[in-house]
Structures are given as C-alpha cells and as structure tokens.
C-alpha cells in the first residue's frame, strides 16, 4: 500500500512538474500589455499606414483573413489541417467582431508571442513561429494599416478541431515543444541584401509554412528549413528550395528568380516555368506587389541557400533511355503513350518539348519529374492557369482532365511523361493519383 502510495505521489509530482514546465515555457517571455484601460492613442502617419499595407502584402495576410468573395480582411476562410479546420479571424477595426479594441501592444503580442488580446493561445495555422521574427516597428506599421481599413462587422467563426486539439492545454504543450518567441538576427558576415531577403523569407513571407515538412504534430523544424514538404490536406507538394532536383534556384540568374515571383512565369535556361496551385496564390496576393529591391533580396537569399541532396531521390533528368524502373520503361509503349498522344501532345509536343513562352516543356521539367508526383497529379486532374499578374496579365491555362481520365489513366499518362525524353522519375500508381487528387 505504502509503495503504491509513493508511486502515486511521485507520478502526481511529476505531472505537476511537467504542467509547471509547460506553463513556464509558455509564459516566460510573454509581454502582457498594460491593461489599465488607458487607451494610448497615437495617430499613425500616412507613411506608417502605407508601410503597413506593403508589409501586409509581404505576409499575404489577406490570403487567409479573407473568405472567398468576402470583405477584405474580415476573416472567415478556413485553413484545413490534419487536426481540423482553423478559421481565420476578422482583422478589420470593428470593435466587437474585429480587432478595433486592440492596442499595438496587443497586436505585437499576437504576432510575437502567438497570444490573443485576452491571453488565449493562438493556433500556429496563424504562422507566428515565423511572425515572431517580425520587428516591433513592422508590427506597429501592420497594426496601423489594419486600423485604417473599413470596419466590417463579421463575427469570427469557431474553429472546428478534433479533441484534444481543440484544448488550450494541448496548444500549451505544442508551444512548449515547438515554439520560442525570437527576433530575427541579422548575419553580420552577409550582405545587407541577403539579410533583407532572409528577413522577408523567414518572417513575414513564412515560406517554410509550406516549403518544409511537418512532424506528426504539425510542427516544422525551423523557419530556416526550406527542404520541401507535402502541404497537409491540400496535398500539393511545396518543393524543396535546396535541391537541384526540385525547385532550387541556385543555378538561376537573379532576374529570373525575381521574374517568377513578380509575374508568376519565368524562363530559366530558356524553358518556360510557371507557378501553380498554392504558389499561385502567393504570387497573386503577395510577391507580385513587392518592390524590385525586396524581390531581389529574397532571390539573393534563396539562391544562396545551402544545397542538399536527398538520399533515395531519383534524378529528374538522366540521359535518355535510362528509365528509372521496369514499369516506367514498359509505359513508353503502353496506354500512357497513346493517351499522351491523344490529350497532351497537341500543346506539350510529340517529344515533350513544349512551345517556348506558351506551353511548358515536359522533357527535363523538374516539376514533372520530382520524386513526389502530387503536383503533376493536380495539374492533370484540375488543370490550371498561371496567375494573372501585371507582368503576365493574360496567362495560358491547361484544361482539367478530371472528367476525361480516371485514376488509372492519369497514372498511365504520368508514368509515361515521367519516364520519357530523359525524364527518369518513378512510375505513378492509380492509388497515388487517388490519394493526391483528393476530395472534389
């Protein structure tokens, strides 16, 4: 009895200690704004508001905080996660449903510490592991801009998360494990341009929110990790920015990188590249609006990223004839070849050569021959336009084949494309197509 009692006491003690640790890790550097009810009204300058508007573009705040067809920044868009759907709140200055009652200190606390005005812990679907690195000055400018928007009375929609993820305690544990408030620290050994790029990419740009893999609890390793990852639920693969086999830009000239971010299309080494899927949203809502200097800074940073090679990954483009495996080789004369001829060759060419500046080549195309076929599946099934931007106002679009080709047929076409003309990526199965195309 006594031994059992001791074990129970020890267990209880351990639980209390763990709880206290989690609590301490969550509050140790929190900044509780003065709550004396003294509203410190500082009238923002026109410059500060304009700067905030620009920074809101850099962070694409509107992207999540605006429902499709809804009032800008009034919230309501759902961010699907493996744990349920998180709904972005109203950021307009409506006093009751928006952030009209928030001080700049409250806003800073949300961005830097991931806490709401009332101290509630925020879900990291709001990428505060990145935004924590935003400077106080930039946070204040963002707040000034949001305060300048028309107030929209639109109540926030409650998150729809499964137990236990709907619990603040679960969030506290997550934060204890994966979140530390931290400012961006410039690297004195690098140029001012590189440092500016690093700040934009790691902080407001929150690039790694997609371009990094997440663990079972949805955490990324670090804002510096841009080694690629499958975007949960959406099942688009945000390719590695550090691998030459995926989307590294180390071998691209700076103007080509900035062109892609500015217009949504570019032609590195002469072949057309266009953004698609979620990156299309990024270009539309964010990067096309940034200054050439900031785009160049981001490009310089991305170009200089340390390169990795991923073990077990197939080279995208080996010499012709070196098919990756037997099934890919068999596909060259199989039904995939016939369907390619029927549906694809008209635009992409008999030998996957594409048409310069109009239709992307498929031969030697990294996006087609990446190890993960997720994006190729999306493109064939859903089609898609490159984003319409000031620099590319009338983009070409590919038709969806969802109603024409079944999973097996999509797999056949992709297996053919990924194994032809020097492409040497693994075959695609109908099961993979089914997995990636997702619910419609």
């Amino acid at each position, binding site marked *: 009895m006594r031994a059992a009692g001791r074990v129970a006491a020890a267990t209880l003690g351990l639980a209390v200690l763990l709880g206290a640790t989690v609590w301490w890790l969550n509050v140790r550097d929190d900044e509780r704004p003065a709550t004396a009810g003294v509203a410190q009204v500082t009238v923002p300058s026109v410059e500060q508001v304009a700067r905030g508007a620009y920074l809101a573009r850099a962070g694409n705040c509107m992207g999540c905080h605006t429902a499709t067809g809804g009032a800008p920044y009034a919230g309501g868009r759902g961010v699907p996660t493996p744990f349920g759907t998180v709904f972005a709140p109203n950021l307009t200055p409506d006093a009751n449903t928006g952030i009209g009652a928030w001080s700049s200190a409250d806003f800073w606390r949300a961005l830097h510490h991931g806490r709401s005005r009332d101290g509630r812990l925020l879900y990291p679907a709001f990428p505060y592991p990145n935004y924590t690195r935003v400077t106080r000055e930039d946070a204040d400018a963002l707040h000034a801009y949001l305060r300048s928007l028309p107030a929209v009375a639109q109540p926030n929609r409650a998150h729809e998360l499964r137990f236990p993820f709907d619990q603040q305690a679960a969030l506290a544990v997550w934060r204890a494990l994966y979140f530390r408030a931290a400012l961006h620290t410039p690297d004195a050994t690098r140029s001012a341009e590189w440092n500016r790029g690093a700040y934009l990419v790691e902080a407001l740009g929150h690039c790694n929110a997609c371009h990094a893999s997440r663990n079972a609890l949805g955490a990324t390793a670090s804002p510096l990790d841009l080694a690629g990852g499958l975007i949960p639920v959406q099942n688009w693969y945000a390719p590695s920015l550090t691998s030459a086999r995926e989307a590294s830009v180390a071998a691209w000239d700076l103007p080509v990188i900035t062109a892609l971010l500015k217009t949504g299309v570019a032609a590195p080494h002469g072949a057309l590249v266009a953004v698609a899927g979620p990156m299309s*949203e990024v270009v539309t809502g964010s990067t096309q609006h940034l200054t050439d200097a900031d785009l160049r800074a981001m490009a310089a940073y991305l170009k200089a990223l340390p390169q990795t090679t991923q073990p077990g990954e197939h080279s995208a483009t080996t010499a012709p004839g070196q098919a990756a495996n037997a099934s890919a080789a068999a596909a060259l004369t199989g039904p995939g070849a016939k369907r390619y001829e029927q549906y694809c060759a008209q635009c992409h060419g008999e030998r996957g050569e594409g048409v310069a500046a109009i239709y992307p080549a498929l031969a030697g195309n990294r996006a087609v021959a990446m190890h993960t076929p997720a994006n190729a599946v999306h493109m064939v099934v*859903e089609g898609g*336009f490159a984003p319409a931007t000031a620099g590319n106002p009338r983009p070409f679009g590919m038709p969806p084949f969802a109603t024409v080709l079944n999973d097996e047929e999509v797999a056949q076409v992709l297996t053919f494309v990924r194994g032809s003309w020097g492409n040497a990526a693994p075959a695609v199965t109908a099961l993979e197509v089914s997995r990636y195309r997702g619910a419609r």
Partner: protein
Amino acid sequence: MQACTGCHGPQGRAASDGYYPRIAGKPAGYLYNQLLGFRDGRRSYGLMNQLLAPLTDDYLREIAGHFAGLDVAYPAPQVATGNVDALSRGETLVLQGDAALRIPACVQCHGAALMGVAPAIPALIGMPRDYLNAQLGAWRTGNRHAFEPDCMAQVAKALAPQDIAALSQWLAAQPVPAGAKPARALPAPLPLRCGGVAAPMPDESAAPGAKR
C-alpha cells in the same frame, strides 16, 4: 482558351447531350458575371472555382468577350422523354408563367425567342436538360447565387421540383433557329429586380416577386 474548350467543346459550342453548357455566343455580360461568380464563390463547381482563382477581372472580361463573340452552329435539340402533361406544363411556365405562384414567364426576361438579352441575360434554349435541371435545383437549394437581389433564386424557390423537370424538358427540346442571337434590348421592364442585370426596373412596389 484550351482550358475552357476541354469541357465546353471546341469554340465553346458544347453538345446538347452532355452536361457542360454551351458558352459560345452567350451575352458577354452574362458570361463575365458567371466567371466572377465562380471565382468569388457565388457559384460552386470545384474545377471552375480552382481554375479561375488566380485570374483578374480584366482577364475574365476578356475571356467572356471572346466566347460571346463566337458565332458557331447550335446542336440539335434533345428529344423530350416526358409525358404530354409535363411538356404542356413546361410550355405554359415558359410562355405565360404562373400568376398564382407569382412566377413570371421565362420569356419576360430571357426574350421572346428565349435566346437571352444582351448584355447579361442568357439563352435558355440550346442547353442540355441536365444542366438546366441542375442550375434551377442549385438556385432552389442555395448552392448557386447571382448578384443580389438574386431574382433567379426567387423564381427557382417558387418552382416545385416537377415544374423544374417540366421546364427543362420543354426547353431542351426546342430547336435553335439558324443565326439566332441574344435580343438587343428588353421589350419591357424586368418583372423582378435582378442584381446581375443593369436594365430598367419597374418601381419596387410593382414587383410581383415572392419576397423572402
């Protein structure tokens, strides 16, 4: 515009035996409103919603203008399979409406020839029956919206499911005369207020629409 013609047929002419509607020769304003509707979520069809998401108003207007300007032959009408009573009910609704249910006749807005009225009211003939059924059903259940005030939602909600089937049967069975085009102007003010149509309206008290 291969991204469009993949489903809507070469030059957007879509056959009458499928689901995807013809877009060639429809009024430009109507097509533009639909493109905006798909992009901004008033209309719900996954493939269209995704395709249009990254496109601007200007580009959508240009795409609408392109298809509105195409003059291509219409497909043959579908053979009606409904019974005589249903077809007769459909014809009555189209040509006369139903005063008791406060349903205006289709021809009052969509033109005497049912070929639509420029710039924003579409033709009702030359369309697949399944598509017509699906659209009226979607308006009735709140899955399709037009700009407010949404007159078609009022009409669809006043229609019984069997009335929708009767209408669609009759409309899909009508041949489109060679060279038929949308009417240039409405013969009379619209019987309902329609947010998507910039046209003369009667004064509000005269509107017979079922107010909700």
